[in-house]
């Protein structure tokens, strides 16, 4: 009896010691942040003030109630010779402590109602952005600007998550809070933000803007923001949306109106350039090199960087009937997705070169040696 107990105790001791030592030796990471951000919009300031006001009211109530209790605990104890009183109700007292909370709640409700009404005023916006949640990335559509792009977790964070890099979270700038394409917004502009989703429910949340809103497939929600200070504001998906819920951050880059206009032009150009060259022959090496990057950004979350998938949840591509079978079937599933599963139709999300590169990569990586390469032109022909 005593022997297993001591060994168990020793194990426990070791666990505690190792964890405690980790606490001591790990570098001081962060700021021990305690409170809500004040944010950078008029609404976020109102929300912050409301938060602080209620917090302090609650603190005062807590002090009064707990102090009464403490007084009682110290003075009305049997070992101090306290004799129990006989009273067991008092209508006046009970009415009083029903009335006081009501008064406090009214004091809170008035500013809360004002803020809520202000939040609903989505009219008069200068630009409208539509945000679509996907498993697991965000799509930003600058409505009326013909500009749409995806925003996914930055490659350096992704490598740590996939364990394809030896880097530690603390070695990376903004681990899990950085993306490849931030959403750029002009300051001092009323921006209407629509949210929806393509698959399951997500929630778009940047604390500095002062609110979050669900993105629901088939429905559209509207909100607005007015950013007053240029800067980079980070946030995350805030509604459980499956495996990589923790890996779809949001980065808002707020810039001056002039910079925003320049950015619009440049970004449109960049997107056009990325899809140019679709009409020439590509070599296997070129497609493999491009394919690896596109695969990591778009496919590795489910099928894994090593192509082995997650058994029972996401199928392996290594030696799979699709990735090593007829090329038409492979193109079809990548372009059109598979109904009833998490496999999306990438035809709508990626350009011809990227699709060709992914398919080529999947057919020739990790020991898959089909040897054929799919040209962007072939993809173009299927559109």
């Amino acid at each position, binding site marked *: 009896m005593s022997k297993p107990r001591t060994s168990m105790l020793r194990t426990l001791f070791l666990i*505690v010691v190792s*964890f405690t030592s*980790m*606490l001591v030796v790990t570098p001081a*990471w*962060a700021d*021990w*942040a*305690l*409170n*809500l*951000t004040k944010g950078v919009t008029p609404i976020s300031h109102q*929300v912050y003030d409301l*938060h602080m006001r*209620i917090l302090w009211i*609650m603190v005062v109530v*807590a002090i009064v109630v707990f102090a*009464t*209790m403490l007084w*009682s*605990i110290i003075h*009305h*104890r049997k070992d101090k010779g*306290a004799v*129990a*009183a006989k*009273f*067991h*109700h008092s209508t006046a*007292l*009970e009415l009083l402590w029903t009335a006081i909370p*009501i008064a406090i*709640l009214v004091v809170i409700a008035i500013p809360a109602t004002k803020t809520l009404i202000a*939040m609903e005023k989505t009219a008069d916006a200068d630009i409208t952005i539509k945000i679509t949640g996907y498993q697991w990335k965000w799509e930003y559509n600058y409505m009326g600007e013909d500009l749409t792009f995806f925003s996914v977790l930055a490659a350096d964070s992704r490598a740590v*998550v996939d364990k394809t890099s030896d880097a*530690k*979270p*603390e070695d990376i700038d903004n681990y*899990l809070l950085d993306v490849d394409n931030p959403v750029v917004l002009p300051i001092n502009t009323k921006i209407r933000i629509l949210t929806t989703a393509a698959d399951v*429910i997500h*929630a778009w*949340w940047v*604390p500095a803007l002062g609110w*979050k*809103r669900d993105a*629901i*497939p*088939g*429905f559209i*929600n509207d909100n607005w923001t007015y950013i007053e200070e240029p800067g980079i504001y980070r946030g995350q998906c*805030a509604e*459980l949306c*499956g*495996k990589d*819920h*923790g890996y779809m951050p949001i980065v808002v880059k707020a810039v001056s109106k002039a910079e925003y206009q320049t950015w619009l032009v440049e970004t449109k150009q960049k997107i056009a350039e990325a899809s140019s060259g679709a009409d020439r022959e590509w070599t296997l090496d070129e497609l493999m090199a491009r394919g690896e990057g596109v695969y990591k950004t778009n496919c590795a979350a489910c099928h894994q960087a090593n192509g082995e998938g*997650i058994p*029972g*949840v996401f199928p392996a591509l290594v030696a799979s009937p699709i990735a090593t079978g007829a090329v038409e079937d492979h193109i079809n599933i990548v372009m059109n997705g598979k109904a009833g599963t*998490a496999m999306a139709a990438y035809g709508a999300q990626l350009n011809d070169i990227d699709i060709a590169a992914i398919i080529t990569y999947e057919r020739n990586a990790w020991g898959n040696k089909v040897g054929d390469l799919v040209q962007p032109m072939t993809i173009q022909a299927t559109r």
Partner: protein
Amino acid sequence: MSEAAVHDDHHDHKPTGIGRWLFSTNHKDIGTMYLLFSLLMFFVGGAMAIVIRAELFQPGLQFVNPQFFNSMTTMHALVMIFGAVMPAGVGLANWMIPVMIGAPDMALPRMNNMSFWILPFGFTLLLSTFFMDGGAPAGGWTMYPPLVLQTGNAFPFLIFTVHILGISSIMGAINIIATVFNMRAPGMTFMRLPLFVWTWIITAFLLIAALPVFAGAVTMLLTDQYFGTSFFDAAGGGDPVMFQHLFWFFGHPEVYILILPAFGIVSQIIPTFSRKRLFGYTSMVYATVAIAFLSFFVWAHHMFTVGMPLAGELFFMYATMTIAIPTGVKIFNWVATMWRGSMTFETPMLFSIAFIVLFSVGGFSGVMMSITPVDFQYHDTYFIVAHFHYVLVTGAVFALFAAAYYWLPKWTGHMYDEGLGKLHFWTSAVFVNILFFPQHFLGLAGMPRRIPDYAVQFADWNMVSSLGGFAFGLSQLIFVVVVFKCIRGGDKVTDQVWEGARGLEWTLSSPPPFHSFTVPPKVTEESAHG
């Protein structure tokens, strides 16, 4: 089965062997089984919590993959709510309600047996999903579609388990109401019922009203998945948000199902150790009824961020704030009961006082979250995780510990080890705050809930929280030792056990006979509730 188990004719003798438990219709035995089962589930769910806290100890993925992490959070909630807290409440009701109202047993003893024994069956089913293709459910215990429809083979098992657990709880609730309504001893009027009984009647009605709606909602999920309906599928004209409305129509009363019995327990214990009658008995009863009634009109505060019209948001904000009023009345009444009492601080009292303080902390953050515009920031962050763990762990679970320490001597006839009990209390009370208080900071600083990995700026508080979690988990082993020792032996206790205890249960011997109150006692104003 042993020979002796076959039959035993002696007066007031219990059947022996395994048959005593399998076929039991005795409220005390069934109560014991419920309590032991919930203790087991408390450790199963606790083990999952340890996995969660271990993974969150540091940024990066150390132990589990994100899919399994989601299974852990989902199953932890299901096991703790349906396996630990609810059965513990039903177990206490089974044990105590008949002896508190002077009835010989529950009204429907055979149904009582069934409602217990389908529980282990249900949980075997639920836990077996860990070994299925696609793993255990990982879409959150709230089961929001469309995500929950991506569950693998576990999906029908999840729905079926919910049905089974729902049926068990409904049967338990029917039994409790039938017992209290029909089997009270002469003189035991409704306004003389101990508050624990009162809170349980109201809880039972909440169960009967809320659980069938939940059963209906998950049935719709099932038909959406397999039979081509589109209740929640936008493509077929349905609405995924409607599930959330249905779910929380059940889900909000459900949180009161978890906490009302705790209110009842504390209302028994505080007067006993203050040696003074409960302050404001009548207002306590009305406050409980008011809370239960209001709980059906506040559900949408769980889903402010789905985008409701302004009028809806305002209505649910005001309605939610209103709940603070009857809850406040309860807190004030408890404090007033202690005021000018003659207090001693045995373990049940310590847990009850901690309950009042820490449940209030959860209540304060609750008021903060009722404010819609600010909730847009708090929603789905660690702030809410901290809030509901304060009300459910330091609230419901602490009250259950208090109840166990309070009635253990009555159940076993032995005094538990007070030293170990106090140790259990102090370790629990300290570590639970190290575990959950920093989560307020994490949530406010912007950490969403249900994520397996986080940005390094959240690292410090997560590490503190995890350390608190491990220590809190270990502290619970003390409780097992106390219970085990107390069942095995210990100082004999008197019938009354506690100096200030009032009520029918303390007129019985300790432990009470297998069949008690076969002749109904006579109840007077003086001998009624504390």
